[in-house]
């Protein structure tokens, strides 16, 4: 086999089971594929804290498959190549469950080329933890009244007494005019989509610590009764991500976006979750 950075690809692969940190793998199981192009293909089976590795032709049964060239693979193992950069350059791809693959790669101790002893001072200690502190968030009178409105399937906005601008969710004051908002009005609940953030990237939700499911769509809806930039922020039915059209205005020319309606939750408690998401109002 060919060597890269002075290291044999096979040595990196074959030492994987011995570098597997059993104590950290409790409760993790699954098959993971390594497609290293000309160097070959392997399947890593993780179960009950054990890891077994075998050459494999077919990786279709794997939860996730990483595909890269042997040089990139060895370079990443040795810390000579940055995995994120390799992904940005398409030199490394992960098909399937990226999250699961990410958690598996962290279960291995760092690869050390033959002859390099793991001296105490070369081991760099890492501490992983999820920090969680319970919180009691107050609504205050303004956000409270708005959220209570959702319970009754009403979307409320506040109007600035000076410029007339509507804000929903409402604010205590109009930032532009620097006066207290005074008048409540009901808007929507239907509207037109003006903005879609089509999110492919899975990140943790700090309110739960759980990783979000992707893809999802965060949207801005111009609710009926609103104008200009008075856009309402929520989610789109993920099944309709590819069926919606964003509206826009260029040089005063308006192009209308898809009509949307809220889908109300069965049990409403006075929170953002009282609207499950918006969907096409066909």
């Amino acid at each position: 086999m060919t060597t890269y950075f002075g290291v044999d690809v096979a040595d990196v692969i074959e030492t994987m089971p011995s570098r597997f940190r059993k104590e950290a793998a409790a409760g993790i199981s699954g098959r993971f594929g390594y497609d290293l192009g000309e160097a070959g293909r392997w399947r890593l089976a993780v179960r009950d804290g054990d890891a077994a590795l075998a050459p494999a032709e077919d990786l279709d049964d794997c939860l996730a498959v990483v595909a890269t060239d042997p040089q990139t693979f060895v370079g990443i193992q040795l810390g000579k190549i940055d995995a994120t950069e390799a992904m940005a350059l398409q030199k490394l791809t992960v098909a399937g469950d990226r999250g699961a693959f990410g958690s598996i790669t962290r279960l291995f101790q760092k690869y050390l080329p033959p002859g390099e002893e793991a001296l105490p001072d070369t081991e760099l200690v890492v501490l992983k933890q999820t920090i969680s502190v319970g919180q009691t968030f107050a609504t205050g009178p303004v956000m409270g009244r708005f959220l209570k409105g959702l319970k009754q399937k009403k979307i409320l906005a506040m109007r600035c007494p000076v410029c007339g601008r509507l804000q929903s969710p409402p604010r205590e004051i109009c930032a532009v005019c620097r006066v207290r908002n005074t008048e409540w009005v009901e808007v929507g609940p239907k509207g037109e989509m003006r903005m879609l953030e089509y999110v492919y990237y899975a990140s943790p939700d700090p309110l739960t610590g759980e990783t979000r499911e992707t893809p999802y769509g965060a949207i801005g809806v111009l609710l009926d009764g609103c104008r200009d930039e008075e856009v309402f922020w929520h989610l789109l039915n993920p099944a309709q991500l590819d069926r919606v059209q964003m509206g826009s205005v260029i040089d005063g020319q308006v192009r209308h976006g898809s009509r949307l309606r809220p889908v109300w939750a069965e049990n409403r408690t006075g929170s953002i979750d009282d609207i499950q998401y918006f969907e096409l109002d066909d």
Partner: protein
Amino acid sequence: MQSDFDTSDCYTIEGKLALPYTYFAGRVGSRFITTLRDQHKIMGVRCDACDTVFVPPRQTCERCLGDLTDSWCEVGSRGRVVNFTVVRYPDRHLPRPVPYVLAMILLEGADTPIVHLLEGIPPEQVAVDMAVEAVFAETTTHTIRDIDHFKPCDA
């Protein structure tokens, strides 16, 4: 100044702040922890300019900004209590059910005491100057808790 507005629309929503973290001990901190873990030895660093042996070790002397990376010295796993308190308020971030003793312990050969748990003695019997020794942890946490706690010993 009292909030005298109508609070009928006000309520609270329970939630949390929960995010994942990965802390790096660095070269100096790692050597301290792995030596503790693998050899049950407690290491400090010596700043010659300030004539001080610091525990826990650090890369830079904050007094003179001298580099202490390679100024390792072993200190004893025994020492004496120089100060202590008894933690009696229960909370999730605490390492033990309360009450427990949190002591400042000056190890043999060190000039700066460390803060650690003192067990094996009722809190009311703890006294300044008493001799204590480290009890090393059976499983590593990769922190200073690779010393599980200190316990009283013969002087």
